C-alpha cells in the first residue's frame, strides 16, 4: 500500500497514533456525547452509538459550544477521551479544551478525509511536522 500523507494547516500537541473515526457531521462534546460513557448519543448523529475512547476523530466542523473548554479535560480524566481531534474547521473552544486536556488537535487538511480515510484505519497525527499519515487500512 502506498503511504498517504496529508498536510494540516495548524496543530497542537504530541504525536498521536491510533484508530480513526471519520464523521460526515460536525461535533460538540455537550450536544452529541454522553460524557459518562464516551459514546455519541445524539439521536440521528452520523456516529450515533460510536465510542470515541482512544480514537483519532475526524470531524468537518465544530458545533456549539463553550462546554468543550472543560469537557475534554473531564473525559480524559474519566479514561474515555480521544487520542486526537482533527477538524476541517474548528472553533477556539475546541482548541482551548484540547490544550487544557493535553489532547492533540489539528485544523484544516490538504485532502478531505472522506476521500482517503475510513473509520477503522490506523493513522498518525504529527502536529509538529504538520502531517497526518495513513498507517494501515482496516
Amino acid at each position: 500500500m502506498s503511504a498517504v500523507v496529508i498536510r494540516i494547516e495548524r496543530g497542537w500537541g504530541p504525536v498521536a497514533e491510533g484508530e480513526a473515526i471519520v464523521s460526515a457531521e460536525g461535533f460538540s462534546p455537550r450536544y452529541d456525547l454522553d460524557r459518562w460513557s464516551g459514546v455519541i448519543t445524539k439521536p440521528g448523529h452520523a456516529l450515533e452509538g460510536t465510542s470515541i475512547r482512544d480514537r483519532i476523530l475526524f470531524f468537518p466542523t465544530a458545533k456549539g459550544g463553550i462546554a468543550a473548554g472543560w469537557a475534554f479535560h473531564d473525559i480524559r480524566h474519566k479514561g474515555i477521551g480521544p487520542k486526537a481531534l482533527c477538524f476541517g474547521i474548528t472553533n477556539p473552544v475546541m482548541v482551548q479544551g484540547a490544550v487544557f486536556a493535553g489532547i492533540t488537535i489539528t485544523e484544516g487538511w490538504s485532502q478531505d478525509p472522506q476521500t482517503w480515510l475510513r473509520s477503522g484505519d490506523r493513522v498518525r497525527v504529527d502536529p509538529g511536522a504538520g502531517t497526518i499519515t495513513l498507517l494501515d487500512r482496516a
Partner: protein
Amino acid sequence: MRLTDEEQAMLAGAHGEALGRALEFQLAVGRFYGAERMVPIGNAHMMGDIEVMGDAGLEHLERLRASGARVRVDISTNARCFDFAWSERLGQDAAEAAKEKRVIGALRAMDVTTTDTCINYQTVYQPHFGEHLAWGDTGTVIWANSVCGARSNFEGGPSAMAAAMTGRTPEYGFHLDRCRRGTFVVEVDAPLADVADWGALGKLVGERHQSYWQVPVFTGLQHTPQADDLKHLGCSLASYGSMAMYHMVGVTPEAPTLAAALGGKRARERVRITAADIEAVYAGYRNADASCNFVVFSGPQLSLWELKRLAQLFDGRRVHPGTTVFVTTSSALAAQARALGLAGVLEKAGVTLLEGVCVYILQNLTQMRARNGWTNMISNSAKIVNTITAHRFNTILRRTADCVEIACSGKFR
C-alpha cells in the same frame, strides 16, 4: 508572540506559578491561531459548573485556590446545574450538589463573582464598543460582538478563568477587524413575531453555514427587533452554526450600511429566508409519542420582559395535570419577578421557576427524563431544542403562546 515585560515576568513565575501556567496556556492557544500579542480585557465571563467540569475540573479549581490564585479582572459565572432549593425535589444527586457547592466556594475564594447567569449582557455587564472581553457561553459572545461591537472569542471555562487571572487574552479571531466583516448576506422576508421565529431564523442560517468564521449580515427586516429577539437569534446562530458574530443593517453598530458590514468586500453568498421557510422549521419536528408533558422556557435564561410576557400568558390558567413546565432565570431577576408579582402568577399556574440554572445542563437530566416519562421537550428556544438532545429528548420548537397552550391543555399543536 510579542510579549510585554510584564507578560515575560508572569511567564517566569514572578507573580506565582499559577499565573505563569495560566499565561502559558493562553499562549499555546494564541500560537495555534497565529496571534501576535495579548490584549488587555475589560471583563470575563466563565462557564464553571460540576456537570461540565467533572471531578477533574473541581480538582483543578481547588488546586488553583490552594495556590493562592486570584482574578485581577472582574469575572462572572454562567448558569449552573443546580438550583439548591429544588435539587432534592428534582431527584438530583446530593453528592454532586455538594461538589457544586465546592465549585462555588473555590471560585468565590479566587474573587470570581458567581452570578450564575447566561444573560450577563442583560443583567450584569454591558461592554462598550471596541472593548476586549473573554466571555463564554456562546450566546454572551455573539451578543457582545454583534450588538455591542465589543470583541470576544468563544472562551471556555478554564480559558476565561486564565484571562481573568492574567487580565488579557490572545489577539486572534474576533479581536481583529479582518474577522469581523460580514461574509454572506441574509435577506429576511418574514414577519418574525415571536422570539421562537428569531430562533428559527438562526437555526436556518446557522445549520447551512456551520463555521465559527462565518459572519451573516441580515437585511430587510420588517420591524426593529427587541433585545430578546436578538438574544434568541444570536443564541441560535451560535448553537447551530458555531457562529460568534452577525450584523444587522441599521441595527447593530458595525453595520450602518450593507457595504460597511461587508467591510468593502463582496458577499460570498446571498440567501433569502421567507415566512414559508420559518413555518417549515416548525413543521419539521415530529411528535415522538404524543406526550406533551414537558415544556421548557430556558436556554437562554429569561429576561424580565420575557418573564412578564409569560406571566401574562399563564395568568388565570393552570398547567395540565401531569405536565411539568420549567422556567429559568437568574437569581437577581427571579427576586425582581417575585417583587413584581410575576413569579407568583407563574407559580400559581403550576410553573416551576428555577434560579441560576439552565435546563439542558441540569445535573442528572437524563435520569430525570426517564423517571418522569418525558419523551418530547417542547420549547420556544431554538437553542435548547438543539442543545438538550444528548439527553435523548425528542425536541420540538413552538412559538411562546403555543408552548403555553400545550402546557395548559396537554395537547400537541
